């Protein structure tokens, strides 16, 4: 056993609390001359969650709900506006780029678009070797090659394919190359942002199975970002549902899928098309409000079938109820 103080390894590999992220919209010349105020897109508004060691935690929601922004902020591709990110016992929310270096090695990312995320001018062997050389994980060329061939083998490539370029591979294969690259630094934590949404269903199953096998083999923890609820249900232990930059419900997969409580979670689950059902429930009306002008009350109030007066004036706090965290005025009052 390596001599490691048990207290120093918290149960959670990642703890995010009160995370806030926003972007200023650029104003055109006329707007600036006429003195229009700056417009701010409130992408993530005080999100808290944790990812335990060895688990898959998913953030789910529709486009624009802030799930990808949360993921990108967590790995510090973006500077958080407020809140703390504790990774492996270390608060990284204010780390400088050089301080992030040794953290980056332990947290890697798998991206959505397998066409955009691989350099078209690099051979796949170089794509996979670059991070391990950069982070000094391997001592020399021979070791790098050996490790690269081993990783490519794990994700299902033959050694002679290592010399090819990304365009010679299909979407599913490219996604597997992206996975091999993520694994090359021996990470403990992987953020997967919609890793299978660009893939055909039969290929999607291959990639999901591979990701789950690797979790066992390399004792990985995943933060999984997805919009497809059936995929999330398949891979995840716990999940958080996001809407307009707020976490509206969070809990175990069984609880949330078994008995969703937040009206938005319910709507999302009943809107997802399934093979097992013929009739869809009454679809949700209306659109998501603008993240520039956040509603003063509950973010979901304008579409909510259970809306009460308080919902339009006061923002509900997320709190524990029936074995999960939920932010809704209509629950438990």
């Amino acid at each position, binding site marked *: 056993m390596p001599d490691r103080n048990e207290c120093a390894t918290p149960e959670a590999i990642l703890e995010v609390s009160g995370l806030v992220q926003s972007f200023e919209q650029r104003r055109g010349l006329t707007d600036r001359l006429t003195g229009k105020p700056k417009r701010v897109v409130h992408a993530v508004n005080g999100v808290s969650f944790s990812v335990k060691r060895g688990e898959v935690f998913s953030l789910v929601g529709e486009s624009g709900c802030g799930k990808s922004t949360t993921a990108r902020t967590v790995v510090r591709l973006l500077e958080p506006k407020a809140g703390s990110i504790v990774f492996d016992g270390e608060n990284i929310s204010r780390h400088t780029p050089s301080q992030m270096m040794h953290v980056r090695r332990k947290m890697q990312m798998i991206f959505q678009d397998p066409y955009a995320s691989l350099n078209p001018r690099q051979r796949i062997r170089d794509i996979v070797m670059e991070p391990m050389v950069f982070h000094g994980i391997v001592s020399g060329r021979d070791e790098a090659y050996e490790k690269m061939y081993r990783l490519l083998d794990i994700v299902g490539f033959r050694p002679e394919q290592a010399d090819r370029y990304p365009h010679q591979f*299909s979407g599913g294969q490219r996604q597997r190359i992206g996975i091999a690259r993520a694994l090359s630094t021996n990470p403990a934590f992987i953020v997967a942002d919609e890793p299978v949404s660009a893939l055909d269903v039969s290929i999607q199953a*291959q990639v999901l199975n591979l990701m789950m096998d690797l979790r066992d083999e390399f004792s990985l923890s995943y933060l999984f970002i997805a919009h497809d609820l059936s995929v999330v*249900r398949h891979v995840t232990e716990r999940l958080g549902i996001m809407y307009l930059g707020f976490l509206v419900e969070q809990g175990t997969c069984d609880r949330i899928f078994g008995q969703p409580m937040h009206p938005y979670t319910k709507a999302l689950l009943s*809107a997802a*098309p399934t093979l*097992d059902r013929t009739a*869809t429930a009454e679809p949700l009306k209306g*659109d998501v409000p603008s993240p520039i002008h956040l509603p003063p009350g509950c973010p979901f109030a304008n579409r909510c079938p259970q809306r009460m007066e308080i919902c339009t004036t006061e923002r509900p706090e997320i709190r524990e109820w029936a074995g999960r965290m939920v932010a809704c005025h209509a629950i438990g009052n």
Partner: protein
Amino acid sequence: MSGPLLEVRNLRTWFELFRGTVKAVDGIDFTLDTGEILGIVGESGGGKSVTGFSILGLIDPPGRIAGGEVLFRGEDLLKKSEDEMRRIRGREISMVFQDPMTSLNPLQTIGRQIDEMLVLHTPLSPAGRRARTLELLDDVGIPTPEDRLDCYPHQFSGGMRQRVVIAIALAATPRLIIADEPTTALDVTVQAQILALMERLVKRSGSALILITHDLAVVSEMTHRVAVMYCGKMVEEAPTRELIARPHHPYTKGLLGSIPRMAGPRVRRLPQISGMVPSLFDLPKGCSFAPRCSFAAGRCFEEIPEMRVVAPGRKVACHSPVGAEEGETKRAR
């Protein structure tokens, strides 16, 4: 008029490219009755979109219709001139595309774009057209249509844009609507709205709908009948519920198996289809699916299976269909 609304016979759409001939659609047959919703499913490269474009005569070089017939109300559309087709498109058969941003003109107001359809395809007066435009927008669920007539597409959300596209497609009350991945670009709650809307409008107007999609769950909820395509060929056709309950083609079975379910026990690993779709330049000699098929035997690698009727309303192109006999005995008992 007797006979089906649309009958496609041995349709072949080939693309003559430098590297060789791509048989994107290679000898498919199907029929569609008035009021029916047919789903065409398959993964990328299956030929489902090209089928839709071929029906409308929208194949440009290097593509060409290499043979077959597209009988619409008894007349072969493939023999029509471009002028005649132009009168059919929009008036008799209209199309809804995947991306509402690219199928709308960004420089014209939506009122004008709907009006254009009405000018071309209806005898209405300007006042009548305006009234009809408002009625259409109201039908597709756009609130306060009077205020929206002079808006441009960018002022609408994705879901609202797709509603406008549907309004345009419905403007001349066509007998057949071809919808190519109409909800793929949309979020689930919006997808549910649009699908419910399309179903309602099709039912009300008595037109027929061909829904082209990769999403079997959507097909399951919307359609009466499904045709499954793989590598340019139709491999199975059946009433929707029967196909989902008892797929006969191994590819259909594999596709259904690789979709994670929203209900029932969670499985550790998803069943997956091994390998990947072969290159259309270099299709295997026998059944295109044989290299990935776990049931494939000698004959499958030699001889292309013909589409044949295995039960009333059920057709499958496979030398050894799965569960066909078993299904029959079950029903007999």
